[in-house]
């Protein structure tokens, strides 16, 4: 029995963190937030060379053919560095979907994903939350309707869209009848969009794909939880470092129990959550029956402790933590935005109860 990371996984994490520290330091993130789309293609191409974009793409399609735990570690590093990237949609949710759907077209897209030349967004929000009358339907082979908070869809080449609950479609971003509007959130490092379809033609339509869409959501939830875990880690590191250098009342503030207990509470929440996340990510491949429940719990739990850690870390910094200049808000906002992207904690827990037969399916 070995409940932990392998040498390869530790190396992957170390390599990626080194790369991000050098290539995408926080100063670079500050520049990217001013852009129309923060998902920078140069960074993405460099990540493709590291093998990161195709982490889940089968080796036969030019990817690394690794497992969801590996993707979760990548996501954790991206969250740790608040790197803007379409990793969640293009390297996790889309490949999980496309690999299951199969066929020559999907194989081609998978190759494009691994190479970094084709970036995918996903528009599955209405599978778990319908607001503003959103929803996409097929009408004579053409897409109509709209989808909100589509992940990484702005600036993407293609989008995997949920049509109703049982069909998936792939659409080009520049196809006639497709309009993509960026929906600006507090988090400048993650790109969400509204997609409006007015008789758009799909590249491919996959019926009976409800199960595939569910697996995409499970993978997305676990990997998004990992992003929050990484962001939390960074916030704790910064709080601890600050508490070791900031002096008030002639003492390092970290020597005050009020402050050190805040730090202890943050790490005491984080470490068991890391164990939960590892297990959930492992289960996705090794024990897929457990993945529906664990993906809900992993994301809901990380979202809950994430909000607390984001707040407490900022408080450890005092007033300076509240400034733009200190940068801490990038992590705070990353965590805040992620909280509701693939189902908020309440909805995920309601789903967890249904999955165990504790409540009727809604």
């Amino acid at each position, binding site marked *: 029995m*070995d409940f932990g990371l392998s040498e390869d996984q530790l190396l992957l994490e170390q390599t990626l963190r080194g790369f991000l520290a050098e290539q995408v330091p926080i100063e670079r993130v500050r520049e990217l937030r001013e852009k129309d789309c923060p998902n920078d293609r140069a960074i993405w191409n460099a990540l493709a060379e590291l093998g990161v974009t195709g982490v889940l793409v089968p080796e036969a399609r030019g990817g690394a053919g690794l497992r969801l735990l590996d993707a979760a570690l990548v996501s954790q590093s991206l969250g740790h560095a608040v790197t803007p990237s379409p990793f969640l949609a293009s390297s996790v949710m889309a490949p999980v979907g496309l690999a299951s759907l199969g066929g020559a077209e999907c194989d081609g897209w998978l190759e494009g994903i691994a190479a970094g030349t084709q970036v995918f967004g996903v528009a599955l929000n209405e599978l778990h939350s319908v607001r503003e009358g959103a929803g996409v339907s097929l009408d004579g082979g053409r897409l109509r309707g709209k989808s909100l908070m589509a992940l990484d869809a702005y600036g993407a080449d293609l989008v995997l869209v949920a049509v109703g609950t049982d069909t998936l479609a792939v659409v080009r971003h520049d196809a006639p009848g497709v309009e993509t509007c960026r929906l600006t959130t507090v988090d400048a490092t993650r790109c969400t969009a509204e997609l409006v379809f007015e008789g758009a033609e799909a590249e491919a339509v996959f019926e009976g794909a409800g199960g595939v869409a569910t697996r995409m959501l499970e993978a997305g939830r676990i990997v998004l939880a990992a992003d929050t875990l990484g962001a939390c880690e960074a916030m704790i590191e910064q709080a601890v470092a600050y508490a070791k250098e900031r002096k008030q009342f002639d003492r390092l503030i970290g020597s005050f129990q009020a402050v050190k207990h805040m730090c202890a509470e943050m790490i005491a929440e984080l470490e068991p959550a890391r164990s939960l996340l590892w297990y959930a990510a492992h289960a996705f491949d090794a024990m897929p029956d457990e993945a529906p429940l664990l993906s809900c719990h992993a994301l809901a739990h990380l979202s809950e402790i994430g909000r607390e850690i984001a707040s407490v870390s900022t408080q450890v910094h005092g007033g300076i933590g509240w400034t733009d200049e200190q940068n801490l808000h990038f992590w705070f906002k990353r965590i805040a935005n992620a909280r509701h992207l693939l189902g908020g904690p309440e909805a995920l827990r309601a789903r967890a109860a249904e999955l165990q037969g504790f409540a009727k399916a809604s």
Partner: protein
Amino acid sequence: MDLEIDARYDAFRQEVRDFLAEHRPKGPIGLGQEEDEHRVHWLSLLIEHGYWGRTIPKEYGGYGAEPDLLETVIMDEEFNKAGVPRGMAVQGPTMLVPTLLTHGTEEQRKRWIGPTMRGEIMWCQGYSEPGSGSDLASLQTSATEDGDDFVINGQKIWTSSADHAQMCFILVRTEPEARKHEGISYLLLPMDTPGIEVQPLRTMSGDIGENSFNQVFFSDVRVPKANVVGKRGEGWKIANTTLKHERATLNANAEGTWMRLARLMQSETVGGVSLMESPVYRDRLMRLQARALSMKHHGMRMLTCSLKNESPGVAGLVVKLQNCQLSFDMAALAIDVMGELGALYDHSRYERERGYWQAYSMFSLGLIIGGGTAQIQKNIIAERGLGLPREPKPARA
């Protein structure tokens, strides 16, 4: 990540199952004096088959096997499933025996370990004092030299089982002029020595549960100098090696408790409707499930570190704090689920599960405080785990 247990352990698991099928005791194994014979028989049988005192050398009364954590996990799983205690989780075997194995003389090991493991000798632990709780090293109970003896005077508190223990392992101050951590010695003391008075200390949970607490008063109690464990003046260091052990063993079976809570929510009704139907209570139950699963898998991660002989670092330091709070929070939901009937106690009419959840709530609160309070745990996590500075000592007036 590989969560399979190697097939070579299958035979061992079967062996444990066969043993339990054949020897499983009918009644509970009590710790009181009146149950001596029954207890000694059961523990001796366990030692003989290697399910208790497994890694203790034969010459000291153990089974003499090589340490193997997975065997321990399998034994615990199978005994838990059968609802049978695997040995006796009291302070003699869990605290004193490891101490003697590390620091005791050959004579002390031969004399005490076997009878302690077999339950022939029950021990109590004389550590805390009314004035020395979190700051245990400030303890004042004194032991002054007189010929071949020490003479002990002072008071201990929170002394579990002192009312029926035959022996006490005690921390006393033998060098009053030394610095606070350096003047303490670790002694073994028969409880029938003249000058010892035991007074029961009734806790908030009343008579429920097996833990009886006491205060113990010492007036001119004589103990031979040969009863020191390790070197005189090194008692603090010696005690600390086993205090760590105590914190590690304060581990709740979080998932099992959560399942019991879920069953309660399904069976309990208000207005004829199951509490599980209520989205409000259900949401709380799901929040707790995520925490219980976190602690379960965190335990697997800690176990892996032990198997690999790696230090888990700060991840290991948080276990006691998180488990104890989780236990308390689960009890709190259970009590809320029962509503106005949740406070029923002491065999009252309509009481559920014989008052289990109220008792569990109070017991968990005790665990949050005992074995190092939550606040002390947070200091340890912050200082040893995160490297934050210690609080400066106040300037002496």
